[in-house]
């Protein structure tokens, strides 16, 4: 019996073959990397895009409207054309960091697959691109019975689009995230009576175009400031009690209403899947649920990069591709160097006021990059203000960028030019300082 596992050395290991991992692999290759492998847990590359059969993908990246599988296929084709190796049905279970290794292969990526058993990939650089998962009922602590008929929107999407199974006929959807909106329309088209979408917030968590196309055009009502407070039915779901909520998101007594249904779909947020990153002791951002990264998308563990929904949840896949391109190229450069670069001087970027988070969370300020951010609540006629502040409290405005409307569902991009970077460097010099990003009335 073979009890010694297989060991392989490659410059770059990419954990996850969804849109993020594929784009990172292609960009690393195009930068010059030839020793790389994509590890994918599913039987196919493409990740969650394979079940997103609706269109609306690619308008930014390919300047063309594609379905999810089409978008994925473009990247799969690019990877195949370049001869990039990918291993499917392979689940990474652990990543170890061995800074003491002198040959530069400081990362050990342990994975399990039916064809090869345990394989240890020793790598110079690792890109984390594991994606995210959906929040579930237990996360919300929604009380009631536990019948069949309650699904995450993504599971329902897979059942309908890939497995050809109709999960129910009378549908209530909790949460107006994009998957929930897409599934509202899908279920309606498949013959279900989609009674309503309930959203606990006073505004939708989905893209404006999805509200229009998936709800308004389909005559599906959206109830804002409304949530599900009880679940009924012994074996199969028979209905839910919904209630309006106050500004603290607490149900308002007396507003409860029973809605009969056999299916409740949950689209109540996505969580970056960072179990591997946490075990590797990568420093995490409690707001994004992803690692803290610099402008190259390098995490606190040298030579380990993160991109896509494992880093922070994106609203459109085109931005995932863009971000992953940065990570892939940087991962190549790190591998080329042969040794992990010890922490360059970092300046922290701090989200303040209505800005919920920024990516990156810190930067070396050596070359132009963009700050991506998301606001906490909708805001109109305002501007983003980026301010540098020294430890002694002295501060200077670096840039201002106006917006007509900023909403939590749409990520904003704030590019930093070489001129602005030199302004930051000149102002902060060697002083301990931070950059603050906030919003103000325009």
């Amino acid at each position, binding site marked *: 019996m073979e*009890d010694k596992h297989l060991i392989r050395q490659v410059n770059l290991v990419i954990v996850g073959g969804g849109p993020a991992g594929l784009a990172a692999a292609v960009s690393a290759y195009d930068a010059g990397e030839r020793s790389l492998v994509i590890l994918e847990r599913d039987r196919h590359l493409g990740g969650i895009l394979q079940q997103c059969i609706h269109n609306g993908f690619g308008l930014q990246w390919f300047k063309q409207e594609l379905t999810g599988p089409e978008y994925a296929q473009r990247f799969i084709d690019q990877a195949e054309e370049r001869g990039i190796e990918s291993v499917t049905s392979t*689940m990474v279970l652990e990543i170890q960091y061995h800074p003491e290794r002198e040959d530069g292969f400081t990362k050990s990526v342990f994975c399990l697959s039916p064809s090869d058993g345990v394989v240890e990939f020793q790598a110079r650089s690792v890109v984390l691109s594991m994606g995210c998962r959906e929040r*579930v009922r237990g996360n919300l602590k929604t009380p009631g019975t536990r019948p069949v008929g309650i699904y995450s929107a993504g599971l329902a999407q897979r059942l309908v689009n890939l497995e050809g*199974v109709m999960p129910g*006929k009378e549908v209530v959807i909790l949460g107006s995230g994009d998957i929930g909106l897409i599934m509202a329309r899908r279920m309606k088209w498949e*013959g279900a009576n989609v009674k309503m979408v309930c959203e606990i917030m006073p505004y939708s968590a989905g893209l404006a175009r999805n509200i229009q196309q998936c709800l308004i055009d389909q005559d599906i009502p959206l109830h804002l400031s409304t949530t599900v407070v009880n679940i009924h039915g012994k*074996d199969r779901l028979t209905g839910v009690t919904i209630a309006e909520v106050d500004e603290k998101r607490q149900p308002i007594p007396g507003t409860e209403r029973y809605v009969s249904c056999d299916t409740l779909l949950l689209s109540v947020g996505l969580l970056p899947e960072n179990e591997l990153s946490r075990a590797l002791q990568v420093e995490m951002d409690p707001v994004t649920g992803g690692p803290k990264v610099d402008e190259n998308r390098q995490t606190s563990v040298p030579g380990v990069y993160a991109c896509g929904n494992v880093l922070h949840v994106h609203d459109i896949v085109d931005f995932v591709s863009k971000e992953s391109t940065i990570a892939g190229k940087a991962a190549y450069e790190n591998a080329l160097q042969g040794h992990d670069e010890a922490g360059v001087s970092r300046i922290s970027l701090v989200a303040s006021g209505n800005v919920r988070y920024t990516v990156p969370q810190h930067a070396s300020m050596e070359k132009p990059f963009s700050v991506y951010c998301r606001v906490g609540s909708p805001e109109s006629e305002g501007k983003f203000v980026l301010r540098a502040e020294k430890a002694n409290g002295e501060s200077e405005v670096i840039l201002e960028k106006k917006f007509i409307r900023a909403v939590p569902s749409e990520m904003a991009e704030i590019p930093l030019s070489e001129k602005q970077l030199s302004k930051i460097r000149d102002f902060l010099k060697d002083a301990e300082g931070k950059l603050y990003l906030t919003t103000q009335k325009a």
Partner: protein
Amino acid sequence: MESSKRCTDVLIVGGGVAGSSIARELSRYSIRTLLVEKREDLARGASGANSGIVHAGYDPKPGSLMAKYNVKGCAMYPQLSRDLEFPYRPVGSLVIAFDEKGMETVRELYERGLENGVPDMEIITGDQARRMEPELSDAVVGALYAKSAGIISPYEATIAFAENAAVNGVEFLLEEPVYSIEKIKAGTEEEAFVVKTDHYEIEAKVVINAAGAGAGLVSSMAGAEKIEISERKGEYTLYDRNLGGFVSTVIFQTPDEAGKGVLVTPTAEGNLLLGPSSDPIEEGEETATATTQEGQDKIFKMGRKSTPNLPFGGAITGFAGIRAVFGSDFYIKPSDMVPGLIQVAGICSPGLTSAPAIAEDVAQMAVQLLKERGVDASLKENWISKRKGIPSVREMSWEERNALCQEDPSFGQIVCRCETVTEGQIRMALRSPIPVYTIDGVKRRCRAGMGRCQGSFCSPVVMRLISEAAGIPFDQVRKAGKGTEIGQGKLKEI
């Protein structure tokens, strides 16, 4: 439908931990034993939804059946968990006190424990307790520490007892609710029972009523004594595995009349568990196992009293279980009114702990009754005492994982990413001695779908494996019992 006839020496009604452990004890004898369970799987009542604690035995009143069986059962679990390969961890328990009144209770429990024969107890100070459990509240002034307490997976233990019994020849009929029990004259004078279920007509010499919350109904069907079961509901919150290390022992508050109070505990499989509430269930309430906002809020508040940093986030599911209470003690005895019927009723806490000890005595009662009826109930020579469990790939070393994969590559195919469950494990669950072809059945046997995503990713794959193993159409695979098929009609059907 024509019901098929079965003839058995002993019929056990109820596939909870009591019925299943009794089945295992009876499987030692060269007799025919049959168990019927109304639900589609074992451990679907109180045995499947409780705290999973192996209590040390300082709670029950000295001299009670509870005291006797609790202390004995607690001592049996370490060996049983090794023989039958179910998760058990001897973590010990703390009963914490917040004031002098609480300390009085702690001292009472200690004394009671001594009287009950509980080993390895100690009264410790608040500081000693906090050294053991850094998350304990500063308000804790002292505690009773009982080293013999432990944690198990209650449904896996039940399944392990049952599977071992099945391997030794006990027949299990699931999804067969009993709807009548008649006494008949079999042959010339010997009395026997005819028990009817949906599909079977079972003739049995001895009937064991281990029907949990249904014990009263079963007793009345048999024309035996009135057993009035009152039900109490216990609600729980289960947290993500990454919080499993929040506490390392079972932390109780001092008990009151409603029960042992809210506890904060690691589970045998590495999660963090909070609960139970204890609320009466109104009669006829269809949703007896529904969670409530009040119940969830209450246990959280109580849990925070013990451990103030108990996180609000990180919960992955909530559930509620029913406690079948009858009087203040277990009711375990041959029926006074109906010869041949053995009552095993009122098995509320510490029923899980007591079950293996109860089973020994009940098996003796049954054997005695059989002997009186002329059955030669001798011990088998070839009884198999051990059961092979499903290997846990998550807990293996890399060497072990690799070796297993070389033997069977399906142990290299991860299906449930949250709990690291492979296709091989799921296939084993579907080939087990008492296979249950449901999504929840698979989950209880190998933990696929038990993790943080609650089956959102893996259930279609589990459905496919069930469909293949059982020959059920994919869309007709069920979550649990009848009426829980996943597919509801066809796509594009308006």
